């Protein structure tokens, strides 16, 4: 009996002596480790990195075309958006290899000649449940491309496409910042980001459930 009391005393003195320090140390260790995991390792693990099949130079092309982005990313006559150009549009100029770039040679040899579409990765691709109308934003809403897409049109090289291993979404939907904080309008493309602007502009705020945007404005 007495031994156990002694032991207890011993332990309690130990706590008094340095167990508190140990606890704080380990607390900090755990804190730092998990912060590193959460902020550094997790994003690395979450996203797979994929290079585009060809390193397209937007800057170069924008200087050669007449109508800016719409020269290649145009609206079809029914108002739908053509998105990433098809081979058909590229062939006009690229039937033969232009210039010295290695990517250009690959493009002509592997895609143009066999008539194979380029499997581009689309940074801004919205999921299947979303109906996004470019024409409503660009023509009716008067928005420019940069608001959502950033300055990709001025880039000379395509960035690495990062795909969320769990959802299959492009990283650009959540945004590069893993904490979801955005500084520019084009940093994130989640539903809340759409909604934020819709609330501001009073677009279809006709939902009975939420009093905000009705679901069928953007969903299908």
């Amino acid at each position, binding site marked *: 009996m007495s031994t156990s009391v002694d032991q207890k005393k011993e332990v309690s003195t130990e706590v008094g002596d340095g167990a508190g320090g140990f606890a704080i140390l380990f607390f900090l260790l755990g804190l730092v480790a998990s912060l590193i995991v959460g902020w550094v390792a997790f994003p690395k693990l979450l996203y797979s990195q994929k290079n585009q099949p060809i390193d397209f130079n937007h800057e170069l092309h924008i200087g050669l075309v007449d109508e800016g982005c719409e020269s290649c990313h145009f*609206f079809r*006559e*029914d*108002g*739908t958006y053509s998105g990433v150009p098809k081979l058909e549009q590229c062939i006009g100029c690229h039937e033969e290899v232009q210039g010295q770039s290695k990517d250009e040679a690959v493009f002509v040899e592997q895609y143009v000649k066999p008539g194979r579409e380029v499997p581009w990765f689309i940074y801004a691709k919205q*999921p*299947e*449940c979303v*109906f996004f*109308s470019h*024409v*409503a934003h660009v*023509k*009716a809403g008067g928005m420019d491309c940069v608001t959502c897409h950033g300055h990709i049109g001025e880039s000379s090289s395509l960035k690495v496409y990062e795909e969320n291993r769990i959802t299959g979404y492009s990283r650009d939907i959540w945004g590069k910042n893993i904490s979801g904080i955005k500084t520019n309008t084009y940093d994130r493309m989640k539903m809340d980001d759409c909604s934020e602007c819709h609330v501001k502009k009073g677009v*279809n705020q*006709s*939902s*009975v*459930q*939420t009093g905000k945007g*009705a*679901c*069928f*404005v953007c*969903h*299908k």
Partner: protein
Amino acid sequence: MNKEHNKAKKFGMVIDLDKCTGCGSCMVACMAENNVPFKADETNKLDSITWMRVYKLTNGKSFPDADFCYLPRPCMHCEGEHGHSPCVSVCPATATDYSHETGIVSQIYTRCFGCRYCMAACPYHARYFNWWDPVWPEGMEKSLNPNVSVRMRGIVEKCSFCYHRYQLAKEKAYYEDRREIEEQEYQTACTQACPAGAITFGDLNNPEHAVHELKKNPNAFRLLERLGTNPKVYYISSREWVRLAGDNYLRQEGKSEKN
């Protein structure tokens, strides 16, 4: 009423039961347009997904006085006396919603978690649950329409008045620098396919749309009107027993409630 409210649309349908032949084109047009799945055995009608379903009403008389009438039933897109439909008010997931702008009851599949409260609440059996994952035989997935998302197991789906066609019509209008769409630019798949021309679709609020006049037909009625669901689908029948069948209650029910 403010100006904004006047602009609100109320899409609805008037179905002429005298013209409806029960051919089922509306059902298949809907299935083909909206990527509705199918199974090898679809004879259990409780789990057979048909956003648009043609019912057969009978007058209950004996041969040769027996008579019957077909009644196509899409979602009624109820507005309800309180401004919302029975299904919307019970949805705990905000997966189904009512928009004042179009009068359409929406269903967002990715939002739905399959509690099926809405199915219990809907007096028209217009909602269907996906008990299984949809399976298309190899190659047939090529016929799927990209404008409508394919649903998965465990969620509820229903008629959307082909809302995607409204979105597409608006895209075309915006492209042509218009804000408004024409009546013919937005028509549901069933309306378009009906070989008898029995279905008319349009904005019930717009006096220029055909439905605006048709709904005033003395033979027009709506299903279970006494429930106060304020449906947007009107039916026309010259036969009285059909009109009575549209408000088919148990005898002791609802008598006092009707003014």
